[in-house]
């Protein structure tokens, strides 16, 4: 009987997992995304795996947003979207999870700003006005860098939109 309650609660909120290796900027993009949700007026919670795990390499950050968010915890299989920056990371996702993965060429091309490129891809899937994305990105970076980062962001957004139109 409690199951039905649980499902109803969690269906309303959007759940995103960000994963990658240390140094790829996983936490940077999950933080930008959380702020973009905040500026749009959503409740949002974000948890990062920290501690010893960091030294081993895998970095995972999970984000939940919606009208009201209670628990900050999700299972990978509950994720609506998974943004995975490193191809060797395995997560027990469900078949319904939408994957945001860079291609091999994109990994080479975007290198240091691959995280922001993938954030751009993610942005095409979410109902967040573009000005809130820009605000969140600009606040995160020093002025000089934001130009470059916004380019990577728009490239990602465009590539995702193009893909979506093919489907």
């Amino acid at each position, binding site marked *: 009987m409690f199951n039905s309650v649980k499902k109803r609660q969690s269906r309303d909120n959007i759940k995103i997992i960000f994963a990658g290796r240390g140094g790829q900027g996983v936490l940077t993009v999950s933080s930008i995304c959380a702020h973009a949700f905040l500026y749009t007026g959503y409740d949002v919670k974000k948890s990062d*795996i920290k501690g010893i795990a960091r030294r081993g390499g895998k970095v995972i950050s999970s984000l939940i947003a919606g009208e009201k968010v209670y628990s900050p915890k999700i299972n990978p299989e509950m994720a609506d979207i998974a943004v995975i920056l490193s191809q060797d990371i395995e997560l027990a996702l469900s078949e319904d999870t939408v994957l945001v993965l860079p291609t091999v060429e994109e990994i080479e091309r975007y290198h240091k700003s691959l995280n922001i490129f993938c954030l751009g891809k993610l942005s095409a899937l979410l109902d967040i006005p573009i000005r809130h994305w820009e605000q969140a990105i600009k606040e995160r970076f020093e002025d000089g860098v934001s130009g470059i980062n916004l380019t990577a962001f728009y490239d990602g957004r465009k590539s995702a939109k193009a893909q979506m139109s093919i489907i």
Partner: protein
Amino acid sequence: MKTLLTGNEAVALGAYEAGVLVATGYPGTPATEIIEKISIYPDVYTEWSVNEKTALELASGVSLSGRRALVAMKHVGLNVASDPLMSLAYTGVNGGLVIAVSDDPGMWSSQNEQDSRLYGRIAHIPVLEPSDSEEAYVFVREAFAMSERFDLPVLLRLTRAISHTSTVADVNGKRKEYSKKYTVNTEKNVLLPPFTSERRLSLQRRMEGVRQYIPSSGLNRIENNPPLPPFSKGGKGGLSKNIGDDIGIITSGIAYQYVKEVMPEASVLKLGIVYPFNPQEIKEFARSVKELFVVEELGPFIEDSIRALGIKVRNGLLPEIGEMDQFILGKALMGNYTLTGEICKDNHATLCPGCPYLGVFYLLSKKSIFVGGDIGCYTLAVHTFPDVIDSTLCMGSGISQATGYSLSSGEKAVAVIGDSTFFHSGIPAVLNALYNKANILIIILDNHVIAMTGGQPHIGTGKGLMGYKKKQTIDDCLKGLGVDSVRRVDAYNLKQINHAVREGLSVKGVSAVIVDGECILKKKSDTQFYIDVEKCSFCGSCLLVGCKAIVRSDNSYIITEDCKGCGLCVQLCEKKTIKRQYKNNLCR
């Protein structure tokens, strides 16, 4: 203004706004960021103290003088600080004194899991527990106000999932200075009979004051969810019962969030103050519901207190071990007992490529001798060299354990301890070993930083959160204590380490070797090594040093991008096939 803050950031901001003059602590996951975040405000004096006990004692001096002080630490840190804590409840405070402690259910970054709420009961002090960052932010200010009002130190208890989760908080960012006058009060502040007797009685009265204050404090709240209108749930005109609307749940902290997730319709008594309890408040809530559950992480702390009031509580079947979540709670409510919540079982964390500890552990792994380990990055050596460390207990324990082992076995024993741990709690153990004529070799791993918790400075580095401080070398310290045989060696020179360890082991009495090598995460290197695959005889000697940058490829070994150019493997390669290259000139 609405903003996203982690629980730790919220505590820092709340304390800043509350006019805290001094914030002290010692690093420890998941509490470290509290002190790091408050250190950005120039009007707060912040320091990494040498250990948690000194951090709390210093803060209590600030409180005596009439200003507010915050102390932050992880759960095991509170054990170290527990001695002053117990007595501070007796003396009470002048300016507010708040101790923020973060527990680590599931042991993600700790040697054990503990429930710091219990300190409220042992010490007789109030314990506040927030459920998210906004509450953490508000509760800190309330904790300072309560501390002054009831003349008690106040514990603010967090857990990993609160400390490290960003949630939305409405903050104002305005600071209000606080100061009170100091007046001499021997009978209050000197704990000596006959004053102790009155302080003990006064403590009882002060805690009774807190108990009476709880209902009006606004820290606890009852959430009675409006029942859904009848007929709303499918049944053909029949009155269908809403799920959980006659169930009452008492909960606090992060567990509250899981309750809202799983049983949104239940009535909830959400405790913001988890010690002491107001019996009347609990009894009234219990009377208003048909069935009462207590939902809490780590063990029946609230539940036991409620049972002690003679109130019937349904057995919640919650695990007493590990971190809880809504899934475990859901199962428990359906009658499925799970023994443990989520527990960290990660065995991937090993010493980094190029770590200055690799060489000495490689050499120790070839000896069969008792090695008393300690807490720090070097504990990770057990994943690289399985049998090299015989024990790891708590900070500062290795030297005394080696002393004990040597005493009973009659053999020389080794203790391995990090630089910060040496200053934190190793020094009394060295003195004890000298005093009692122990026969041990102390190996101090001097990586010039507190590495495990993210690279904080300590007295051995001469730096602090607010710039340059006094620097103390371990060598001088050891010599001052009375250790005659002290050798400092280069962490990347295997011959040197080997020689020093051999000499150290031959000394009858207490000897020391300081292995000097800066943490590799702090170092920039312009060289890397590569293996000449044509000449590699595939003997595997280079692997013995345990560096993760060396991997197997077909019929040879190769050195990956992760190489930091430390050169340890070169010293083991018999065929001399490992060559140096400069990074801007990589031939691979």
